[in-house]
């Protein structure tokens, strides 16, 4: 798993590549802990190169959202494959997260 971050239009875009599973969820959390410590107001996580997410990955993303909301931050997810979006739908996390089809759509209006 790798995360590339880019500051863009006043928000932070985080492009994740690879698997978000139990072996790399702690690394993902560390990346976002730094952004949260800086009270980054708006984050878009881009998923188009994410190949796999397990329940520990979902739990990590929920934790990131919870921490961002604690200081009024906003987060959107973008570019998910149908398979991965299906996991959010099964767990009803699609109701908790703002999930947009593309990065551009996620940035717009955030």
């Amino acid at each position, binding site marked *: 798993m790798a995360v590339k971050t880019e500051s863009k239009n006043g928000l932070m875009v985080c492009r994740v590549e690879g698997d978000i599973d139990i072996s790399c969820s702690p690394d993902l959390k560390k990346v976002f802990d730094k952004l949260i410590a800086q009270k980054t107001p708006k984050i878009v996580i881009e998923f188009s190169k994410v190949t796999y997410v397990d329940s520990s990955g979902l739990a990590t993303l929920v934790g990131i959202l919870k921490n961002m909301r604690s200081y009024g931050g906003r987060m959107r997810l973008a570019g998910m494959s149908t398979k991965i979006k299906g996991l959010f739908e099964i767990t*009803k996390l699609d109701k908790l997260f703002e999930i947009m089809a593309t990065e551009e759509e996620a940035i717009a209006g955030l």
Partner: protein
Amino acid sequence: MEENKVSIEIPSEIKYIRKVSSEILESLSPYGPDEKRLFDIKLCAEEAIRNAIVHGNRADKKLHVRVSYWVEKDKLNIVVEDEGPGFDPEKVPDPTEKGNMFKESGRGVRLIRKLMDKVDFNEKGNRIRMEKALK
């Protein structure tokens, strides 16, 4: 006895999860399951093994997890058993209920129940059996 049944025993360490799921997926190539089925099988096998390691055996490296799998009538069967005290799957909080949405646990079991065709637990709650059609 099930034909072509393969059994693997691993220590309770996260690093073995992917090794086992990869072996299961490789064994399925003669049956030609589509990409979505392979994704579901990989995820559910890994969720079940992770639960066995983390919740069942409490990551005690002295305890083992046994994984068995076989194909019967174009259906994959996977059994995952740990050496822990077991749990009551009916008592796992529903992760989709409003008050539980921010909780960390419970999603693995829900994903397994939704993505596999049949799922059952033994009475003790330390063994799960999952079935998924390959076509």
